[in-house]
């Protein structure tokens, strides 16, 4: 063999149309995981305004919560968290060797359930916000 040819990225995410359920589940789980760990750090950073003074914390949180953008982002966070939880449960069952034949169906089920929970929560999440 004198030389070989590597087809690079074309082989990977350029082929997203050909991905199967398990692959999508993995991609979504990774993505939501990154979002959640990113949120964890910012969450603690915002909460630690409580270290300055009681008033600083209350005004910071209330100022943030009065913004529509923040509320919408919170709905996004809920979606991300719920999917990560449900698909995480699916993965725990897969790790226990339970229901491996239905792994694609359980992925679709967690997607649908996430959608339902998020839609149902929108009124609560947007309550009391001034537009």
């Amino acid at each position, binding site marked *: 063999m004198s030389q070989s040819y590597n087809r690079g990225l074309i082989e990977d995410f350029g082929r997203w149309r050909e991905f199967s359920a398990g692959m999508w589940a*993995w991609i979504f789980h990774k993505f939501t995981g990154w979002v959640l760990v990113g949120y964890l750090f910012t969450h603690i950073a915002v909460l630690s305004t409580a270290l300055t003074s009681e008033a600083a914390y209350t005004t910071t949180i209330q100022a943030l919560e009065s913004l529509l953008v923040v509320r919408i982002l919170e709905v996004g966070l809920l979606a991300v968290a719920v999917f990560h939880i449900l698909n995480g449960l699916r993965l725990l069952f897969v790790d226990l060797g339970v229901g491996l034949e239905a792994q694609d169906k359980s992925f679709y089920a967690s997607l649908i359930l996430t959608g339902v929970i998020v839609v149902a929560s929108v009124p609560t999440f947007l309550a009391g916000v001034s537009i």
Partner: protein
Amino acid sequence: MSTQVPEQVEDESSAESVSPGKQKRDAKKRERAERLQEQREAEAAEKARTADDTYHLKVFRYDPEVEGKQEPRFDDFYVPYKQGMTVLDALMWARDHYDSSLTFRHSCRQAICGSDALFVNGSQRLGCKTQLSDLSEPVRVEPLPHADVVKDLVVDMEHFYDQMEAVEPYFQTNSLPDEDEEQRQTRENREKVKMSTRCIWCSACMSSCNIAAGDNEYLGPAAINKAYRFAMDEREGEEMKQRRLEILEQEHGVWRCQTQFSCTEVCPKDIPLTEHIQELKREAIKNNLKFW
């Protein structure tokens, strides 16, 4: 279907005794025959292209040693369809009738040798086990992804074989039976390893695995399945099982599997690869908990 086009063998003994005039005439005749042959082939190709019962194949072409093929491209082949025709049959027809330089591995043509795993219409399949009638046109035939292409549809399998060798893919035991006895396996144990023994080393699973693509050290589904076949074989004994689990428990062993199920989906022998990998993970954990 034959792999070779029958060639006309020239009768050399008669050519020696004939006059130069006849030789000239013969040469002309041959030339004319060749031209006619070419014309016929071109006509056949044209007919195949327009006919209803042909399959349109788009085949990946690359050859580092031929100028003009150094940049990968797709070639179109129109192959006349016969009932029961597989992707491999179509490739052989294309090679025999259109381009003899079209290169791909094949041997047994019955899903046993494991040489013709290809990337067909976006999924890893055995060329010989994939019916054309199950595919939508144009049928895209590419070499296995996540491997270096050597030429056309041939990929470098060296890394895959290294990973397979790393798990010591052969029976080993310290507890041999008495001299006149056979090394018996219980029926239940045989059932347990049955599916895992079916591996034909075709590398379809390895190619489909997104983690094996990113982490070169990851053993990959085929090698782990091979390890499963022996780790779960009770005749090897406890000591060997420990040794096998130690190989699998390393950071780039079973733990890298992310249960994407890609391997299980593409395996042409229907081996439940993910299930086997998961069972080995639990086995390794149980094994470690024993020592705590």
